[in-house]
């Protein structure tokens, strides 16, 4: 089945999974990633919910499955895309051109810019950080100290920052923040014995099979407190601690408390890379600026344009497992499009077993 | 010769023991409620004492209940108790032969062989009265020694005696048991050494004496042996009041007190002391306790709990985590009222725990022949309510559903938590409510309610569990049931079976509808479903452990369904049950015959749509 060529824009989870799935059937892949490294956001993460396995396991496995059919262009951005007949001419910023029979957009998401929620004081109050910042602390420092170098005695997590919020124009739920907050709450409690941890939530959306168990563990084993209500504002005290105001909606009363560290659960927004391609290719987007597939149920990986496919969080917020399934689905659609026989099974026996065989299994 | 220095340890020990016992018992008896003291006084010189004596013989000496539990265990206890008893009796009679005086000092018979050890007195044929006694004395000694051997074996491997776990020992326990175990070997030695010389024994002591004599200086050793024997006895007597063996005299007292009609009360009192001290720590209750064996909760079995009561510091967990299922009571050979003792301690903890139900406003119910009280738990199993109403309407019973719009709790849970005062508040409310119906019969679906209604409400009307009432309806042909080819097991709810002594009616009712297969543990021995409101302490996970155990016993003979007669049991068991779990009332509506009935059913259902 030689000769066929597919270009994938975005070297995150979706791009990697689609690339290896297609390459496994002998299709030539050009994987274009603007960053210097593959793996997207996950490569910046320490551990993953709900199992808390190291993120490296997943990125390692995904990159490890790329075979010789995959040409990786890191640190590379798309300049121009043109349709010539049935194929795509893609001009890169290193002035190389790629010709592909099909084009898959896996341009992913960006974290919501927490500064936009001015009232929470991100970038102004020393001890207000985002979930991503905290994850870096986990990965880099292996310990948690606040700006004053103090080990926090109380940490607060603010759910839905930039999600489900008309004031920032995001009407959707980012799906992964709730369980991420609970995961991080557990990790903080684990790292700092006796630290009081609070989650300020509107609804807890524990949709995954093991998420509820993690939620219960956080309460039962770690005594994490959950306060139902959305932060109205935060303020910095003289000692650098953060004073938060929220309504305890279950007590139907306003509540204020001091935390040594406030973590904002920034949601997912469509990436700048995606926006660029929207202009380049005149793609449709929905009211939340995510790419609009031909049909969200039935043709979730297709666009109106033949040979142009979508995968991953560029169409909507997704968890890693959802993204991987989505990428495989996209791969299958592309196979069909290229008039290749649809594969009967995905040839990656090791995939999915926790960590086992991660990074091996190149066929 | 009727005295020697060596008797002193025994003699003093005996006196000390007697004094301590007299002091202890009289103090406790003085502490009785006036009414109980009255009962005691009237009891002593009445036929009741004879009955009591009879029971003492059966239980304290023969250990009948022990035998029932396990033959070896029973024999061990019997051989010690009965053997020793006979040695004393027989020894006394034997001593009469030799002594001229009418009243011998108490040590005389015990050490008889020492005092009468001289040739001419001891020349007797085997087939003479003295010879007979000698023979008997050796037989009884052998009996006791056989028990001793078993005791030693039990030490090594208790499971032969049907005990998975045995009790832990205190210092005095160890002292007492060591001395106890030494007494009879030493007696054997002392008598044998003596017999070796004068042949004053029988088949055992004579031959054993000769054997020893063949390689030991028997004559020189006999005197020290008597000393040792006396010391062992003395040591045992002195340590007895502070050891588990206090149960020997106290159990006897308890049997008498019971026969005099003295009963345990809700509150801890001096009668409770008799009960606590009567516990032999035999340990049969340990394996009987599902919370202990399966929910891994320590300190619950009476053998442990009662000791903490002796030291007067029961901990919260051992006081509150017990299910009050009463299984240990069913097992207890001494028949101690453990639930009462447990609750008495909860009262002590609950003294400052308040509760006020001033918000309850009196209300009335229209009058009716029969009143039905579903109870809190039944409201969580509406199928039982519906079934009961269906049955009652089918049988055209004139009844009132007292708590159709929500119950005021019967008070049993508060009662079991040791909050008597608060329980009474609720009971008064319900009592007025029920009296307002002027009913003659009260039907209850929840055995928890049933127990306290019967025991504490003081309503002088007939109070029946629905299983009893339905059986009556069947017998009176008010409803007909069809029997089907169905195999079911019956789970005895604690409060219905052990609690209220209702074992048979539900079974008879079930037999009208299906074939009843046995559970591996049933009736008095049945295991709690795990949901009991008697425990406030244990976690839901621990409750599940108990349920699992119960389900194993219920499904031992592969029934197609489990029938119970308690909303709480039903709800608890059905969680993990491999087969369907039904309340007996639900089973009944499934088996109603007579077309009329089905018509009424339809009408009934329409009415309730």
């Amino acid at each position, binding site marked *: 089945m030689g000769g066929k060529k597919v270009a994938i824009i975005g070297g995150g989870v979706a791009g990697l999974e689609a690339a290896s799935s297609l390459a496994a059937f002998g299709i030539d892949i050009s994987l274009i990633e603007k960053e210097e490294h593959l793996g997207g956001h996950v490569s910046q993460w320490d551990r993953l919910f709900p199992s808390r396995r190291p993120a490296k396991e997943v990125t390692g496995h995904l990159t490890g499955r790329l075979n010789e059919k995959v040409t990786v262009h890191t640190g590379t951005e798309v300049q121009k895309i043109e349709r010539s007949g049935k194929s795509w001419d893609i001009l890169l910023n290193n002035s190389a051109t790629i010709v592909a029979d099909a084009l898959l957009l896996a341009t992913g998401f960006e974290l919501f810019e927490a500064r936009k929620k001015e009232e929470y004081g991100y970038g*102004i109050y020393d001890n207000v950080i985002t979930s991503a910042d905290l994850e870096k602390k986990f990965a880099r420092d292996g310990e948690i100290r606040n700006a004053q170098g103090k080990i926090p005695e109380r940490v607060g997590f603010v759910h839905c920052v930039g999600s489900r919020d008309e004031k920032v124009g995001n009407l959707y739920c980012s799906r992964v923040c709730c369980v991420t907050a609970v995961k991080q709450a557990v990790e903080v409690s684990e790292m700092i014995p006796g630290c009081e941890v609070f989650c300020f939530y509107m609804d807890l959306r524990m949709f995954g099979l093991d998420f509820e168990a993690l939620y219960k563990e956080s309460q039962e084993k770690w005594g994490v407190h959950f306060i139902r209500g959305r932060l109205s504002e935060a303020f910095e005290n003289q000692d650098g601690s953060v004073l938060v105001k929220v309504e305890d909606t279950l007590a139907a009363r306003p509540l204020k408390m001091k935390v040594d560290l406030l973590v904002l659960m920034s949601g997912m927004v469509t990436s700048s890379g995606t926006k660029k391609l929207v202009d380049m290719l005149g793609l449709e987007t929905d009211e939340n600026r995510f790419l609009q597939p031909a049909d969200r149920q039935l043709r979730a990986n297709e666009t109106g344009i033949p040979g142009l496919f979508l995968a991953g969080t560029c169409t909507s917020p997704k968890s890693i497992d959802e993204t991987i399934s989505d990428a495989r689905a996209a791969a299958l659609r592309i196979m069909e499009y290229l008039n290749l026989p649809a594969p009967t099974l995905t040839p990656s026996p090791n995939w999915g077993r926790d960590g086992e065989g991660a990074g091996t299994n190149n066929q | 010769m009727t005295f020697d220095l060596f008797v002193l340890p025994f003699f003093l020990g005996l006196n000390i023991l007697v004094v301590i016992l007299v002091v202890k018992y009289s103090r406790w008896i003085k502490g009785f409620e006036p009414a109980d003291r009255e009962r005691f006084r009237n009891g002593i010189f009445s036929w009741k004492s004879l009955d009591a004596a009879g029971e003492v013989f059966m239980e304290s000496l023969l250990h009948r209940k022990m035998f029932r539990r396990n033959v070896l265990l029973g024999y061990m206890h019997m051989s010690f108790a009965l053997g020793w008893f006979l040695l004393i009796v027989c020894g006394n009679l034997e001593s009469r032969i030799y002594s001229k005086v009418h009243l011998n000092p108490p040590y005389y018979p015990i050490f008889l062989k020492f005092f009468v050890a001289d040739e001419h007195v001891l020349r007797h044929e085997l087939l003479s009265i003295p010879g007979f006694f000698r023979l008997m004395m050796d037989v009884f000694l052998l009996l006791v020694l056989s028990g001793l051997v078993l005791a030693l074996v039990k030490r090594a491997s208790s499971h032969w005696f049907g005990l998975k776990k045995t009790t832990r020992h205190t210092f005095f326990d160890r002292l007492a048991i060591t001395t106890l175990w030494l007494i009879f070997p030493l007696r054997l030695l002392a008598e044998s050494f003596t017999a070796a010389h004068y042949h004053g024994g029988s088949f055992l002591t004579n031959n054993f004496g000769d054997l020893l004599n063949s390689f030991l200086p028997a004559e020189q050793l006999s005197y020290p042996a008597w000393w040792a024997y006396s010391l062992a006895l003395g040591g045992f007597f002195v340590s007895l009041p502070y050891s588990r063996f206090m149960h020997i005299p106290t159990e006897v007292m308890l049997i008498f007190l019971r026969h005099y009609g003295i009963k345990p009360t809700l509150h801890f009192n001096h009668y409770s002391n008799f009960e606590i001290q009567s516990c032999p720590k035999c340990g049969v209750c340990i394996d009987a306790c599902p919370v202990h064996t399966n929910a891994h909760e320590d300190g619950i079995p009476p053998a442990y709990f009662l000791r903490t009561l002796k030291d007067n510091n029961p901990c919260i967990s051992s006081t509150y985590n017990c299910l009050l299922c009463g299984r240990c009571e069913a097992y207890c050979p001494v028949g101690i009222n453990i639930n009462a003792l447990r609750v008495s301690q909860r009262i002590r903890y609950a003294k400052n725990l308040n509760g006020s139900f001033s918000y309850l406003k009196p209300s009335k119910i229209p009058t009716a022949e029969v009143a039905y009280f579903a109870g809190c738990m039944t409201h969580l199993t509406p199928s039982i309510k519906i079934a009961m109403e269906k049955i009652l309407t089918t049988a055209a019973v004139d009844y009132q559903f007292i708590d159709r719009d929500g119950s005021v709790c019967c008070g049993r849970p508060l009662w079991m938590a040791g909050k008597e005062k608060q329980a009474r508040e609720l009971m008064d409310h319900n009592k007025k409510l029920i009296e307002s119906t002027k009913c003659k019969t009260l039907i209850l679906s929840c055995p928890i309610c049933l127990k306290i209604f019967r025991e504490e409400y003081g309503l002088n009307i007939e109070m029946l569990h629905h299983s009893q009432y339905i059986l009556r309806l069947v017998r009176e042909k008010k409803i007909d049931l069809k029997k089907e080819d169905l195999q079911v097991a019956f789970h005895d709810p604690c409060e219905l079976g052990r609690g209220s002594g209702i074992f048979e009616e539900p079974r008879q009712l079930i037999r009208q509808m299906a074939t009843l297969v046995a559970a591996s543990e049933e009736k008095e021995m049945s295991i709690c479903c795990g949901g009991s409101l008697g425990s406030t302490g244990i976690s839901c996970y621990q409750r599940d452990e108990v349920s699992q155990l119960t389900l194993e016993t219920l499904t031992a003979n592969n029934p197609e369904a489990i029938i119970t007669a308690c909303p709480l049991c039903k709800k608890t068991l059905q969680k993990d049950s491999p087969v369907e779990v039904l309340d007996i009332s639900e089973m009944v509506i499934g088996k109603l015959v007579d077309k009329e009935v089905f018509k009424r059913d339809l009408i009934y259902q329409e009415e309730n749509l």
Partner: protein
Amino acid sequence: MNIEGKKVIWKEYQKEIAENDFFYVRSCVRQSFFPGSETTFLKILREELGKNISEHPFHTTCTGIAYHSDIVPFETTMTVIARQFALMTEAGFHNYVPSCITSFGMYNEVLDTWHHFPEVEKKVRRLLKEATGKEFEKPKNLVHSSDIIYKFRKEIAEKGKFRLINRFTGDPLRIVEHIGCHYAKIFPNKGVGGAEYPHVLAGLIEEWGGEVIDYPERRHCCGFGFRQYLVKANRGYSIACSQKKFESMKPYKPEAILTNCPGCPFFFDRWQYAISEMEGVTYGEDGQGIPVLTYEELAGIVLGYDPWDLGFQTHQVPVEPLLDKIGIPYDPARKYLGKNGENIGKPEIASNLKFCH
């Protein structure tokens, strides 16, 4: 606290403020609350900055107080406001400058309504025409008078005779600012620095040598809340709001409270007295209160105007201690003498709050 972070936001929230030719409309209440302020504003603009600023005798309320008390319908409000605009148009001005924060909010609200619902604007024009025969143009530039002081803060600093520095210690004066709720909370992009970290007053304090003190309840309402104060039965809420702020700022030892709203300074000033009477609590150093200033008064101090001409004698919380710190000369004897020397009477001595007589 990371000031750079605030600067990022201040950059985002800058608005156009006209250079000259202002049509000034006074507040209903300020002239009685703080009589010196509005005249000082005009004096500064005319004499110090040489600006062309005019006001109109026929100008009326914007109905803000009635509107926020739910006693006039929005149509009425819009028509009344349309009339004010007509006065400006007739006077040949395009830059509308209300002295009242609530009015500023009202005007923004009305203009925004007209922007989104042109038919409403049409209707209002018709109503105004029918009622008064007047026509109007919408202001080209609508700013609050504090915005103008903010715009010219550097010029004022240059002409200034005093800086906001404690002459005994040489330290900058610690000042908390309070922005009227209707300044930016309704339309954040209409306020200098936005709604969360407004710069309009902070900018003055910084520019004139003082130190801005931020405190937890800074964003909280002063407690006026219209019906909360106007309905006597609700005044407990009003005073509770102010108290909440005082309690919150107290640990930061502020030496003055700077405001830009008619109500706020009045309540901060008077409630400090009421609270001291009710609970014996005062919030300044040794029994004094925290002086409350309007931005005009502060500018007046900086420019070296006579404190009594600025109207400090009408403050409940004495300002003298602050003046002494800065080193501003004043004649205590003249404190209670009116414009033409007649005695305007002294207030009673308060039980707890320190007064200066």
